[in-house]
């Protein structure tokens, strides 16, 4: 048998055992482990131990000394590729900052280190110092120096939470806000609406409850607003000649414009609707984000050198080709505004209105025909907004139907709680099958009851219909809110811009340039419906990509 190059990911006992047997067979083995040293001893999971043995003993010495095994600890996978019958991997091996050849295990460092942090080796049972041996049975010292605390690493925009929260604790509100604005112009708005994934990761959650990061961000932004302080407008003295076109004045487009201005580029932002803000303005209801608050923030962004042209739809009022001709680069941030269809009979009847359109009408102050009962289909945040708006509009009864149970509902728990508090009725394990009409108007909805079937491989249980469980709910209005897709019809066929099968646009993950040079994109149109902070993060990175692109072109021309 010829010698093979074997790579093993995972330094748990199973991985180590595989490494030893492969190495014994004469193969060249690389053993990769994410932790600073090989993991703890483990108990078996498929057989019952007989008293004495217990933990699987791993022969660390044999692994470490085996000539055919190369160890890569503290390593993270960056890229994996399979081609021509072999694999290629790119890994980052984080430095230990302690030379294992010199260290004599005296522990003097541990005694003096002032930093005590979550002990990941012991599953958080206690604390360890920033310099530590991680796993005592292997005892490889290392200094733990992550680039970012977990909250910052989890935030899609990587806001420097630790710093801005610390500045608040010191009473330095203006400085805290400036820290936020280094990466995000929307502190007022995001501080109100962000579902704050950072809080889910926050280390304080291991002690009791996470830090209320989002509300703190809102606090400093509100502090500035309530004290009538004009936020600083800081842009370079001189702008470059090149101008950028931005399509869509949503969170992604406006953030892109803000950071372009900071980098010295003026932009013109084309917006189809009468007012800017995108889903901030036309999706998220007033009671969560009041328009005057939003407009304060947008006006300040525009002051940086972003020219806004509302009521201008690209593809109708101005063509995409004109933008390509007149501007040095284009940023597409048109969001995802087309509601998905239920695909059931009767969906075209009067009284059936898509969730996003319903919220848009409400946000524009249009008169809503709020008579009788309304049914909302879906379990996400858009469904919660539609329900809570319906309740405010004065429908007699508001029902939300969802095909799984409350536990599986993707909406944020606090939104579900608020909706329940407001008296909205939830029916779980129900799916619509037909809209029943009378003279072209809906009058009832036929539904099926569902049950959760066997868990699939991932452990999630699928809803399956219960046969013969059909029933009818009478209602005057039906609001499907089951997801959105981007509308990219404005893109001309011959532009060469590739559109995915989800109607989204692909972009390079670093520069945010699409497959067409000079055309950039981010936000919901790139990712599919997401959250606003992610759209802002994309907008900021795209601005950097655009600046680099224009500079490269200028250099090439010179």
């Amino acid at each position, binding site marked *: 048998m010829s010698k093979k190059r074997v*790579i093993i*990911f*995972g330094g748990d006992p*199973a991985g180590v*055992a*595989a490494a030893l047997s492969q190495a014994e067979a004469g193969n060249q083995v*690389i053993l990769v482990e994410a932790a600073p040293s090989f993991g*703890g001893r483990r*108990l078996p*999971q*498929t*057989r019952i131990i*007989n*008293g004495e043995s217990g933990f699987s003993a791993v022969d660390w010495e044999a692994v470490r000394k085996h000539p055919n095994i190369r160890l890569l600890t503290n390593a993270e*996978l*960056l890229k994996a590729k399979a081609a021509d*019958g*072999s*694999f*290629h*991997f*790119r890994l*980052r091996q984080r430095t230990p900052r*302690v030379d294992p050849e*010199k260290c*004599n295990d*005296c522990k*003097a*460092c*541990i005694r*003096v*280190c002032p930093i*005590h*942090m979550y002990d990941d080796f012991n599953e*958080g*049972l*206690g604390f360890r110092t*920033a*310099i530590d041996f991680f796993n005592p049975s292997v005892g490889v010292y290392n*200094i*733990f*120096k992550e680039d970012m605390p977990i909250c910052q690493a989890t935030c899609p925009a990587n806001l420097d939470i*630790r710093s801005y929260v610390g500045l608040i*604790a010191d009473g330095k509100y203006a400085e805290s806000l400036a820290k936020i604005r280094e990466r995000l112009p929307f502190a007022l708005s995001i501080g*109100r609406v962000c579902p704050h994934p950072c809080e*889910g990761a926050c280390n304080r959650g291991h002690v*009791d409850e996470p*830090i*209320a990061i989002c*509300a703190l961000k*809102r606090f400093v932004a*509100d502090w500035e607003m309530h004290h009538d302080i004009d936020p600083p407008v800081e842009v370079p003295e001189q702008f470059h000649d090149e101008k950028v076109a931005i399509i869509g004045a949503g969170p992604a487009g406006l953030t892109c414009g803000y950071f372009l201005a900071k980098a010295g580029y003026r932009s013109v932002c084309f917006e189809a609707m009468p007012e800017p803000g995108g889903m901030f303005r036309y999706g998220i209801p007033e*009671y969560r984000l009041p328009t005057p608050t939003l407009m304060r923030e947008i006006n300040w962004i525009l002051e940086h050198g972003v020219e806004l042209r509302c009521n201008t739809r690209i593809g109708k009022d101005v063509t995409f080709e004109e933008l390509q001709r007149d501007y040095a680069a284009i940023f597409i941030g048109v969001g995802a505004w087309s509601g998905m269809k239920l695909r059931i009979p009767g969906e075209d009847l009067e009284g059936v209105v898509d969730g996003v359109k319903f919220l848009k009408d409400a946000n524009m102050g249009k008169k809503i025909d709020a008579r009788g009962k309304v049914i909302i289909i879906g379990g996400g945040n858009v469904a919660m907004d539609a329900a809570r708006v319906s309740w*405010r509009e004065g429908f007699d009864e508001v029902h939300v139907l969802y095909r799984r149970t409350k*536990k599986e509902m993707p909406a944020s728990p606090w939104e579900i709680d608020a909706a329940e*508090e*407001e008296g909205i009725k939830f029916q779980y394990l129900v799916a619509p099958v037909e809209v029943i009409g009378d003279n072209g108007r809906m009058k009832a909805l036929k539904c099926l009851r569902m049950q959760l079937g066997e868990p*699939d491989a*991932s*452990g999630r249980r699928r809803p399956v219909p219960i046969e013969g469980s059909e029933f009818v709910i009478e209602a005057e209005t039906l609001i499907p809110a089951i997801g959105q897709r981007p509308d990219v019809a404005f893109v001309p066929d011959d532009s060469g811009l590739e559109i995915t099968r989800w109607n989204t646009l692909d972009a390079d993950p670093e520069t945010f340039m699409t497959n067409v040079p000079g055309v950039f994109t981010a936000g919901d149109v790139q990712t599919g419906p997401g959250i606003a902070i992610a759209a802002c993060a994309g907008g900021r990175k795209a601005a950097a990509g655009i600046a680099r692109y224009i500079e490269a072109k200028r250099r090439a021309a010179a």
Partner: protein
Amino acid sequence: MYEKKGRYIVEFPDIPSERQHQIEIDVEERRRNYNEVELGFDEERALKEARRCLSCRRCLGCALCWAECKPEAIDFAMEDDIVEVEADMLIVSSGVERAQERIDDKFQLGSNLNVITDLQMERMLDEDGPSKGLVIRPYDGEVPARIGFVQSYEAAASGVHRAALCLAVNEAILLRGKLPEAEISIIAGELTGFQQEYAADLEKLADITFQEAAVVSVDAGEKAEVEVTLATAQGEECRSFDLLVLLTQPQLSAEVKKLTSAVGLEVDYANFFADGDGAALLATEKDQVQLAAQR
């Protein structure tokens, strides 16, 4: 700073404050208008809340350790390496990540110190663990007299469920060795299949009781005991434990998912369990990729 008792019990005298809540308007004030519902923090709440932050310091670069280190082993200038690797064969071992974020709040993991996960129990039982192999209640360092293992996930693929139960039984056996007097119970939704499969092994277990039941709620008792309400076939029942251990559901780490999808493989955690004694390596649909069986 907090006081460290040994290396495992931590108190936070400087940051005992609870999470602050935003000011909200009442439900009655919300009907038929669009007034903002949440009004944010006032300055007092904001300051209190901001002071709760642990500021998750990693190494500060203060160099105290460097000054103490006689053999001069510490070198702050060492940098990360980017390593490029070619291989003809790939073996994936999934590790032991658990779906902790999906554990329902009702189990009070995190808020009740005497509720821990099975992985934490595994660490505690290990001689290299946080308490050098001594099993203690995190709350006060007392030795627990009544220990309950309860299933904390709703449903899982059978191989995964079996793995979670096996781990619990193994922990119970080690616990029995350390605490001969303790009352040890294992409580899960479905036990029959497992008990049949492992009948021969389970027969030998001294005084570890099994109960088929689902957890309804978990509450903190007056003396830091954990009160568990169970739904059994006979109706609801209340049981009290000194230490509650949550059986968690094993899942694939993001890293393994990224890796396997990059080479075009669909795997889930159940794939990693060999049937019976099975071979140490499991084949996949790609002949150059194998899985290291969890045993």
